């Protein structure tokens, strides 16, 4: 029974309940009512069209990043550098947009170019982590973390240096870009249908790459057993690098969309932690692309739903992060317990 789908589901349900129970205890300990907190989060995320649009705004980068990470996880890689790849995507996008301020080029064209540029920047940044691993022997986790710090430094340098705001540079970011460089939105909601479409298309593409192509199968082979993949004739390090490139490209798009659809300038925390959150989503869906979209949507809803908590209940909005983390934690633990039982049986 433990090996069946139903068995797995029971354990996952148990993990969910345990996580909710654990967080409820934390809430009780701080003197807050868990029920009220959950109710407020629900209302804050799907209570109105406007709020749901905000959820979608957060859903877009999260889904793009998760899609990319599904590829690197399939290749057996912990692309923790994905944060920095988002940042570089944003930088690449802003860089192109700045070139075309006051130019005659149609804005749609410029936006498209800037997204492409973000894609390339993200991919190049990811390939650095890949090359550090392949040629430098630096584990991708540490190479990636280091590159994340470098990307932060680069952002700050641009904001306070060459791209600084007229007059005084500040942590609020660079000079806002002209309105024409914004992706069109649905009436007065902040969500851009183009951005949403891109994210959904991306996850669909990743799904098909992993399910239906030789390329995807080879990536998986490298991730499952690099030695056997090599003996089967798959050029292993090249495929590792390809997976970095794809993930970086998708993260770069996420960064570019943060610029063109959300912030319209470069800000210090442009990646908003979506990279790390994407890693959590990928872990939670057990690296299965089918579940990426619903779980990413759920996580985005938690993010948005918690924004009002400080005002409504004097609770810090990091509650969403706690909830997400505890959920993944319990899923990992119950999966470990299940495997232990399977082995014993």
């Amino acid at each position, binding site marked *: 029974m433990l090996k069946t789908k139903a068995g797995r589901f029971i354990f996952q349900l148990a993990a969910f309940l345990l996580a909710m129970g654990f967080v409820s205890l934390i809430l009780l300990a701080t003197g807050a009512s868990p029920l009220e907190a959950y109710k407020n989060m629900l209302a804050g995320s799907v209570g109105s069209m406007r709020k749901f649009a905000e959820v979608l705004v957060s859903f877009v980068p999260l889904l793009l990043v998760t899609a990319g990470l599904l590829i690197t996880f399939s290749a057996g890689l912990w692309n923790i550098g994905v944060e920095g790849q988002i940042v570089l995507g944003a930088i690449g996008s802003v860089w192109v947009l700045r070139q075309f301020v006051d130019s005659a080029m149609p804005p749609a064209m410029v936006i498209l170019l800037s997204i492409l540029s973000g894609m390339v920047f993200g991919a190049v940044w990811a390939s650095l982590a890949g090359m550090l691993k392949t040629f430098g022997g630096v*584990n991708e986790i*540490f190479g990636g973390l280091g590159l994340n710090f*470098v990307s932060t430094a680069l952002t700050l340098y641009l904001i306070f240096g060459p791209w600084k705001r007229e007059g005084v540079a500040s942590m609020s970011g660079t000079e806002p870009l002209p309105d024409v460089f914004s992706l069109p939105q649905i009436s007065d909601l902040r969500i851009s249908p183009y951005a949403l479409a891109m994210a959904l298309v991306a996850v669909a593409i990743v799904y098909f790459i992993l399910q239906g192509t030789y390329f995807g199968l080879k990536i998986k082979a490298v991730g499952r057993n690099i030695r056997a993949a090599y003996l089967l004739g798959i050029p292993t390090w090249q495929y590792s690098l390809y997976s970095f490139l794809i993930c970086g490209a998708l993260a770069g798009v996420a960064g570019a969309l943060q610029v063109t659809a959300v912030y319209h300038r470069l800000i210090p925390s442009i990646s908003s932690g979506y990279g790390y959150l994407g890693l959590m989503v990928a872990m939670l869906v057990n690296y299965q692309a089918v579940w990426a979209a619903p779980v990413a949507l759920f996580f985005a809803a938690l993010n948005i739903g918690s924004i009002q908590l400080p005002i409504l209940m004097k609770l810090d909005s990091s509650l969403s992060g706690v909830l997400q983390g505890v959920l993944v934690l319990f899923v*990992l*633990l119950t999966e470990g317990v299940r495997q232990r039982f399977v082995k014993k049986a």
Partner: protein
Amino acid sequence: MNQETLLVGLAGVFAAAAPIIFAVMGETLSERAGVINLSMNGTILLTAMSGFAVAYTTNSLILGFLAGLLIGALVALVVAFASITLKQSQVAIGFVLALTCRDLAYFLGSPFMGVNGPRLQAAPIPGLSAIPVLGPLFFRQEVITYVSFFAIFIAWLWLYRTRPGLMLQGIGEKPAAAYVRGANVNLMRYVYTVIGGAFIGLAGPAYSLGVRAGWMGTISGLDGIGWIALSITIFGGWNPVRAAFGAYLFAFLQWLGLVLQPVLTQVPSQVLQVAPFPLMILTLLLVNIGNAEWVERTLAAMPESARKFTAKLLRAMRASPPAALGVPFERD
């Protein structure tokens, strides 16, 4: 800059490095036993917050540090349970804990944001503090900085001078051989992971009750320290003394960034503050590159004298991790 300010600045480097020293010593012990505790970044934030909160509530610094110790050990216990008993990926569990503990710190810490709490005061050691140069450098520090010096010494002593320490080296290197020689490998892994976690748990209060007193939530500037400490552990080649050197180097570079700021006006100050981070990658590259296959091939093609020199250089920089790092141990 006169000598006085220079000495005060350098003394500040030792103080600023103290929390990193605790974290790096803890991680070194844990990894020596074969367990990577990747949760460090979250643990430091959570213990910084809880250490401060406890000290503030009880008005006792000691209780604050004890709280940090306990919580660090507890988080490490989760890592140990998941990786040793449940045989789950150490990286996955550690990473999730790193994020969760961070958010938990922000969430639970919000009532303590920006309040004025107790903090450690400098405790000059009578007599020693009067020695010229050395006195102001080493002996006018806060208590926790003295403890950090002691921690380096203890970690080094344990690892290289005692029987259990030698066995610890063996457990991380070849658990099967350590088992044959009488070690209860998995129990020892639990013990060292938890003790390592307790060390890491001192890092938080060392910030919030010492060098960066108080709790400021997301703007405490502590997010990222744990990742740096992980890199320093590698840079240190799992040797407490070399790791301590890495921690001081890091603190020194950060201080240098502050000092140079008035000179390098064209470089934004925010950039100088993060300058040590890219340097960390470079050092990791230098430490690891000797392990890459193509380097060996290139070396083989070099003329005799150049090869000998380069190989020597690479070997001196190189750090090989405990061979069984991250590998679960089973008796058969």
